[in-house]
């Protein structure tokens, strides 16, 4: 099953490799991993999307908690939560495709953030499935390049992850 795990950790060199090293050493999956400092610059917030049985995910959270630099771990999938991912897509936009691409970007509430006479670069945010849907909706030959951030997640309502 897919789980989305949020980690608050010390913003120190090497902390990221302790987390990623733990996953590779113990054979856990990482579907995506995002990390950046929080409003408190001494802390980083990481979101990891992983898959595994309940037992494995329980071990993952326990093992993460054991890392000295990890302050808090929450499995967001345990409750209601919001996920967002950012994708930048460079598409061919010449001739008849140019108008079509503009329409597609509008339908998916994307924004065209860079333009040349042959291409558009579109910015899209949403759940992973929405970004997948966009890529499926566009003719594959027109996609020049994609880059995705992986999911970031936050709990719904009053639930907060803080020191």
């Amino acid at each position, binding site marked *: 099953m897919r789980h989305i795990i949020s980690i608050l950790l010390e913003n120190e060199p090497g902390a990221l*490799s302790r987390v990623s090293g733990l996953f590779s050493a113990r054979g856990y999956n990482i579907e995506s991993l995002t990390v950046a400092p929080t409003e408190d610059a001494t802390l980083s917030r990481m979101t990891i999307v992983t898959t595994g049985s309940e*037992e494995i995910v329980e071990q993952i959270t*326990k093992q993460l908690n*054991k890392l*000295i*630099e*990890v*302050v808090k771990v929450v499995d967001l999938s345990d409750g209601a939560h919001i996920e967002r991912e950012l994708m930048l897509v460079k598409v061919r936009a010449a001739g008849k495709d140019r108008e079509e691409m503009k329409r597609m970007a509008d339908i998916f509430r994307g924004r065209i953030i860079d333009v040349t006479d042959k291409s558009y670069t579109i910015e899209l945010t949403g759940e992973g499935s929405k970004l997948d849907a966009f890529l499926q909706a566009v003719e594959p030959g027109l996609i020049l390049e994609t880059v995705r951030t992986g999911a970031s997640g936050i709990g719904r309502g009053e639930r907060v992850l803080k*020191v």
Partner: protein
Amino acid sequence: MDRIAANVMELSGAEIVIRCLQEEQVEFVFGYPGGAVLYIYDEISKQDKVKHVLVRHEQAAVHAADGYARSTTRPGVALVTSGPGVTNAVTGIATAYMDSIPMVIITGQVPTHAIGQDAFQEVDTVGITRPCVKHNFLVKDVRDIAPTIRKAFQIATTGRPGPVLVDIPKDITVEKAVFNYPQNVPMRSYSPVTRGHSGQIKKAMQLLLEAKRPMIYTGGGVILGEASADLAQLVHSLGFPCTNTLMGLGGFPATDPQFVGMLGMHGTYEANMAMQHCDVLLAVGARFDDRVIGNPKHFHQEDRRIVHIDIDPSSISKRVKVDVPIVGNVRDVLTDMLAQLSASQERPDAAALAAWWKQIDEWRSRDCLKYDRSSAIIKPQSVIEALYKVTEGNAFVTSDVGQHQMWAAQFYKFDQPRRWINSGGLGTMGFGLPSAMGVQFAHRDAQVACVTGEASIQMCIQELSTCTQYRLPIKVVMLNNRYMGMVRQWQEFFHGNRHAESYMDALPDFVRLAESYGHVGMRIEKPADVEGAMREAFAMKERLVFMDFITDQTENVFPMVPGGKGLSEMILV
């Protein structure tokens, strides 16, 4: 302003390192010098509070610090240089990590400006050791040395203990800072649990009191957590059988009638059968690893309720799902359990317990550790029995890894904790002799025996030289069967008896080898000479005696649970 600054003494990084070790009341640092740690060594030579022990290989430095830690309640300390100093130390660090041994390793690093430049003797120490330490640090500012070393000792010795490494670049050991040693460095991300949850403890006691076929299974956590006395009290007040893992030997007295022997791959028939067939299991400071319960699926075939006490939540329900988890320091939890027991009127079901003991005694009568006592060739088991007899069960016994390790665990009856020193988790050949050095430094007048084989001893035999330098009167008990015995045993059982590369050819003359280092060497070839030789050796209180026992080449360790099999599927003699 100038006057105030002049009054505050600034020390070099190297001086600060040594002052920190003094503040931690470190008696011994086991190490080996090299370019990146020269300033630190210079400071070592200028004081005599912290004594340095010069080994012959960095692996041995870490094993010696490890033996020191295991035989005392104090963390071990090792000091090595950058590059190859670190890579040599890694085996020792991983050994300590697998067995949760508190230790601080200080490593030199190339100067900060050279890091990442592929400098001479540079390795990414923090990267290489990351998976085999509890934590590690790279110090990049001389002012951080003292708080970092304090943190290292705090982390190494609290919660589930483990090795912590501090990597210090050479230029940082030259720079100066004011020395101020903090008593306690708060860490918001590190706060190990100590007391167990009282509701869980109550539930656990209830289960134990309702048990018909109870079993108590304890591991290294009881030794590390200094909980043997409380464990014995609990086992005695409940009247339940008790087994120890390889790491837990000595946690409960082996000569106690309620002790059913070690369990696991080479555990006793009675311990493994009781473990498999109990209805309530109390696991204390143990982790249900593959060498202990064999195949977890087979283990789950029997219906039983499990209570698991451990300081590390990740040890709970890792391989075996448990019913009542209790996270906490084992000693505190056992104390709480004892208090609840004495406050309660309830006692275990005496009739059920009597029937269970009758069953256990039947299993015991199988006499699973029997061997041919009339053999004309020395049986390895008889050597361990002689060692036990001659030392009256009071020796510190270290071992290497293989058949001799299992025989030592089976036949030396450890009644006290911290007397049995072996590499249980990583299974490191070469551990025995250097760890014995650490033990002997910690207990100058105690009898220290290193039980080894002719294969293992050669993995750190250079340490005979260290033993000469420091006059360590270790007694090396070598079971020489001219094979990597455990490898040969597996080949015999599972690989068509093809002895691929398991024969040790071209062995040295160990007697003369020992003598060349200035020690006493003995070769013992007849069963009748075993005990006499052992007495003679232990009578030489000031000397290292290397005993080369020529033993039966064909002897195997029994019982044996083959890899992947269930606990009750033992091969018996």
